[in-house]
């Protein structure tokens, strides 16, 4: 079924590349990007480099914690970019769809250390959890009227939130939607991914023959999306054109190696956008730097594009930001379309024998390409494909 595109009136993001679009764009194309470092915001004995947000004064003691703090930074920028006031938003039907992983768990170690002894810990962490459902919190604070949902589909959460908002707008459930994702650096995923043996002790190298796993990151990305009928704002108009979503039904963590369902999700998104595969200028891959993810994605790209297509992973710049990744990478994709320049796949050097063609080794000028694909793969074999565009 072909759907009308959703407009994107505003974008905002924060990641290891910096806070805001203006800090992000030059960093996307930088020759010598920032390297990950051992975490200073977490107490850990693991020697695993991570990508934190530079200059962030952390405020964990609030509903939604640091994830909400990051989300506010991105949301404020997106609302300003869309030239929307809070009063205007209260007059419209505005939906809120936010993806996250860590912010929907009560994972406060000191709180639990007391609770499990049978004593009563200070209640603030629990109250912050109960009041910190991200979509509910934004909905409440802005006094909005419209659907709201917090998506926790692991590493596809942010992309899925954008996809659901796209469907809401198509179905006239709202006039505008705040959609995106956020996640902070947190001990549970750091220890957890380490236990799975998929954290790299070195800066990650997606799709490279020497890749050794992922680096964790943090950040947030927000899109202000609108129905087609809403008037354009001055400047570039971005669009969300298609959303494909499938499940592998294969394993609780690993993707199905043949990538059949990821391919199906991409084809769904293309069909929904009314586009052919040749209409895409590039693919911004999930590209975590793990053996399994990169092999699955590359095999799907090779089937869809036997003659090759420009593709990259930006996780060597930001780390894996989990529930934020799909939203941040959707915004990166829009920015590359605006700049008409696809960013190289940083820290890639050697093509493995089991990957058919290499990701971009250099930044690539685009020749009047208006559409690109962003993919997200998550625990449990959850595949998301989003097609983004510029008018």
């Amino acid at each position, binding site marked *: 079924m072909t759907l009308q595109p959703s407009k994107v009136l505003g974008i905002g993001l924060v990641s290891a590349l910096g806070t805001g679009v203006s800090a992000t764009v030059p960093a996307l194309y930088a020759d010598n990007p920032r390297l990950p470092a051992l975490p200073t915001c977490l107490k850990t004995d693991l020697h695993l480099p991570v990508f934190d947000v530079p200059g962030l004064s952390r405020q964990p003691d609030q509903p939604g914690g640091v994830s909400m703090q990051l989300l506010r930074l991105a949301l404020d920028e997106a609302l300003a970019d869309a030239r929307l006031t809070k009063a205007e938003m209260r007059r419209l039907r505005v939906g809120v769809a936010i993806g996250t992983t860590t912010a929907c768990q009560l994972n406060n170690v000191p709180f639990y250390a007391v609770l499990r002894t049978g004593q009563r810990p200070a209640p603030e962490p629990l109250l912050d959890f109960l009041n910190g459902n991200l979509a509910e919190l934004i909905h409440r604070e802005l006094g909005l009227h*419209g659907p709201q949902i917090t998506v926790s589909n692991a590493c596809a959460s942010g992309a899925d939130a954008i996809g659901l908002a796209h469907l*809401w707008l198509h179905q006239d459930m709202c006039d505008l939607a705040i959609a995106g994702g956020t996640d902070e650096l947190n001990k*549970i995923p750091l*220890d957890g991914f380490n236990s799975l043996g998929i954290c790299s002790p070195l800066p990650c190298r997606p799709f490279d023959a020497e890749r050794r796993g992922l680096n964790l990151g943090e950040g947030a990305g927000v899109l202000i999306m609108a129905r087609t009928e809403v008037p354009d704002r001055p400047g570039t108009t971005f669009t969300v054109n298609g959303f494909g979503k499938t499940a592998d039904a294969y394993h609780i963590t690993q993707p199905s190696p043949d990538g059949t369902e990821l391919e199906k999700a991409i084809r769904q998104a293309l069909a929904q956008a009314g586009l052919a595969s040749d209409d895409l200028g590039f693919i911004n891959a999930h590209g975590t730097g793990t053996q399994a993810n990169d092999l699955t994605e590359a095999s799907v790209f090779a089937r869809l594009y036997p003659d090759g297509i420009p593709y990259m992973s930006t996780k060597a710049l930001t780390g894996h930001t989990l529930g934020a990744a799909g939203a941040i990478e959707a915004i990166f994709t829009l920015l590359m379309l605006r700049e008409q320049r696809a960013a190289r796949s940083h820290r890639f050097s050697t093509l493995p024998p089991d990957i058919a063609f290499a990701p971009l080794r250099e930044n690539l000028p685009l020749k009047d390409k208006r559409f690109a694909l962003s993919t997200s793969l998550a625990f449990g074999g959850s595949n998301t494909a989003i097609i983004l565009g510029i008018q």
Partner: protein
Amino acid sequence: MLFLNTACILEDFSDEELKAVRLANGLRRADRLTSLAAAALFRALPERLPHGFSPETGLLTISSFGPHKTVFAMLDDILDFPEDQILPTKFTHSVHNAVTSYLGTLLGLHGPAFSLTCFESPIFTLLETAWTILESGLCHQVLALAIEERGLLTAEATKTCPQRFPVEPREAVGVFLASSAPTDFRLTLDRAKQLPRHAENPFGLPDETLEAFRTRQSFTLGTTCP
């Protein structure tokens, strides 16, 4: 308008029932939240399990507290063991969408799958999302479950936040099978209609909503407010 084939709220799962479902379905490592969901499916849709669904069926789960017992088990590991000895199984099961991936694998579902979380109106949000997916044409049938387990966190929420949780949330599973093919059992979803939340009922649903589910009576579902 949402067309339903099945709508039921199920409770009172014994440890024996959960164990039997785990053992019979290759879910040996599944945690309580996943076990509750699987057991509820076997009660609600026995004729469909495990392979009676179209592979393109969509799958939704929603939970306010999520797999909190497993999250706390992961925190136990962090507190009690060296950091490099965390059990990977505890981590993978502590992720909110573990239950969705388990159920999808058990049932062989390849349709769109989402794990959702909210406190305010979980059943309304679940069914609204089911409607959204069906209307988009991504699939023609959606299996939607609301799942809540009891544990230390739900007990503590009651003590710490009695205005919002005057009684401990009930351990329960809502099972819904929604379809784009018309059925006689129809729900109209109206976000503007606010129903009083009944703290003693599973998912805070009013008695009349539970009765409508039981009797397959078409009605308008609103959100539940405190």
